[in-house]
């Protein structure tokens, strides 16, 4: 049984004030296995961040409709948390608060605005230890220092007394990761954790995340737009477009044989540092605004080179045109290419 099983998740923002409702997540299904890194990849507006917020129960209660299920295997219970599988979408606010921080945790893109600016780092870390593990006083401070040390923050006892603005961007993200893993959560959701950081700092943070997964057995749900990050980190990759998973495969399989025209086009449109200069890029035409509703057909059809009338016969189903563990939502999958042709 997977650690997290998301099934047909929908999130709709009711319009109000005469505006039409927006379906940000439109039937997303994927699984996260324990101790592995699963990627949720897509561009802005594909619904990846809303998916994460829905799983964390962090969407506003008013004006948002949720559907589907997201079953998390909580594992062993504790004085705060009941054991066994629970549907995250069906939980009340109190139960969600108990789960957040202890069983699932999240790190965000902007480390500065995710930290309370007027409270020292140490207090913010010990708060979590007290809330979920009942640690107080000196033992809590000792544990907090150990946590900062583990995420690679030098001189942790001094850092505990400092405020977020005194830390650099990379250090802040490390501090956030320390807070997220303080209670050894079973699932860590990282929403664009390195997008706001420079590449050399990004490399440090990615290395740290890898280490946490390897050593602690934490499952990581990595949400990103950066295919390079995905290639280096994620074992299972789900590509999102317009609120649905359009392709799902293992890392090597996906990059070697991108089969949905969108994934295929995406890989062809990024310049590679190691590709010979002079290779032209092959952009996908149009923008995310050029889409149709999934119930009418494939949302990607207006931008797709392989589009014909079959694409408009209702929502395309997930099929396995290449191999059993490689699912593609397309009636005209790209089957006759190799990795060389993609980059060429």
């Amino acid at each position: 049984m997977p650690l997290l099983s998301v099934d047909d998740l929908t999130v709709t923002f009711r319009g109000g004030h005469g505006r039409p409702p927006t379906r940000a997540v439109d039937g997303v299904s994927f699984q996260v296995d324990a101790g592995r890194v699963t990627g949720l990849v897509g561009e802005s507006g594909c619904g990846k961040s809303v998916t994460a917020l829905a799983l964390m129960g962090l969407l506003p209660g008013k004006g948002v409709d949720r559907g589907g299920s997201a079953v998390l295997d909580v594992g062993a219970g504790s004085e705060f948390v009941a054991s066994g599988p629970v549907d995250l979408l069906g939980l009340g606010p109190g139960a969600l608060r108990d789960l957040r921080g202890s069983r699932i945790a999240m790190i965000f893109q902007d480390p500065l605005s995710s930290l309370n600016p007027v409270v020292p780092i140490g207090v913010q870390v010990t708060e979590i230890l007290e809330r979920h593990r009942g640690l107080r006083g000196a033992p809590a401070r000792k544990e907090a220092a150990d946590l900062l040390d583990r995420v690679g923050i030098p001189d942790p006892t001094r850092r505990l007394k400092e405020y977020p603005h005194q830390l650099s961007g990379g250090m802040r993200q490390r501090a956030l990761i320390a807070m997220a893993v303080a209670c050894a959560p079973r699932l860590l959701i990282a929403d664009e954790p390195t997008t706001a950081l420079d590449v050399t700092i990004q490399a440090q943070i990615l290395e740290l995340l890898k280490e946490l997964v390897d050593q602690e057995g934490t499952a990581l749900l990595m949400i990103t737009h950066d295919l390079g990050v995905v290639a280096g980190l994620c074992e299972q990759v789900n590509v999102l477009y317009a609120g649905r998973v359009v392709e799902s495969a293992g890392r090597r399989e996906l990059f070697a044989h991108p089969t949905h025209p969108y994934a295929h086009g995406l890989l062809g449109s990024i310049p590679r540092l190691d590709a010979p200069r002079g290779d032209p890029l092959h952009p996908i035409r149009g923008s995310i605004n050029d889409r149709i509703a999934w119930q009418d057909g494939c949302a990607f059809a207006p931008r797709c080179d392989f589009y014909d009338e079959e694409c408009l016969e209702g929502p395309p189903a997930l099929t396995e045109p290449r191999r059993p563990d490689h699912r593609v939502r397309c009636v005209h999958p790209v089957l006759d290419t190799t990795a060389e042709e993609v980059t060429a």
Partner: protein
Amino acid sequence: MKPPMTKAAKADRLAELMARRGGDEGGAGLWTEALRRLRRSKMALIGAAIIAVFLLLAIVGPWVAPHGPTAQIWRGEVFPNQGRFVGPRSGNWLGLDHLGRDELSRMLIGARQTLLVGVVSMLIGLVVGALVGAVSGAAATLGGAAGKRVDTVVMRITDMMLALPSLLLAVSIAAVMGQSLTTVMIAVGVVQIPIFARLLRGSMLGQGGRDYVLAAKSLGVRRRRIVLTQILPNSVSPVIVQATLSLATAIIEAAALSYLGLGNPDPAVPEWGVMLSQAQRFFDNAPMMSVYPALGIVITALGFTLLGEAMREALDPRLRG
């Protein structure tokens, strides 16, 4: 098997489905959009309705008033010294005041005076304040080191004006210039000047650091034109909101000055604030005489405040949808 679609047919079908998804209405500027949002706001509608009624009264009031403002027709029925007043009755729907004049007529005629005081004093504050603010803001954003010094001097002066309690400032001005309607308008207007000046300057400073101003600079657009076409149009929306809100405060402040006895002494122009100040002497025996003008002031001020707040929301770029 259906026949394959032609390229044009395929494009049409897609366009149709994309349109069905809804969304993009095109060709609207930010002002048009703000107006559209304003029309959907309940707060704006209530505010606008109140203001419309008030405007209507101010325009037609003097003509529809059944009696003159000074006509003491029922002088013999009211004895303020003995506590005898006349309440609402047929023919005098709001009763009589302490001099035997028709209260309804005075309220109707007073609406125009009240509006006049509010609008003129707000305009004094707006025009002078916006001018000062624009100069200061332009100097600070594009005037270099010398401009920054100009800005500093101007802003310290407005700070000094802001530091004085506004009513005290207005009272001093009124005391120096004597008792008249003009005095009230100037006194209330002057108090608003630093508010408008600070607001516009702050807004311009915020816009001055934006990328599109930098872009205009890099295009080689002249500084004066950058201020006029780039910075100012994007800086005025808080000023418009403030102007609406200021109308409410101006009406209240004018009433306060009148109440303190600095208002227009002419009995032929029964401004609501003056009426309120005269009525309070008889509050024990004729409370309604105070309640009518007070209600008038409160409801009108509420109308402008509601509209102002709704405009603030409609013009806020963060709420664009």
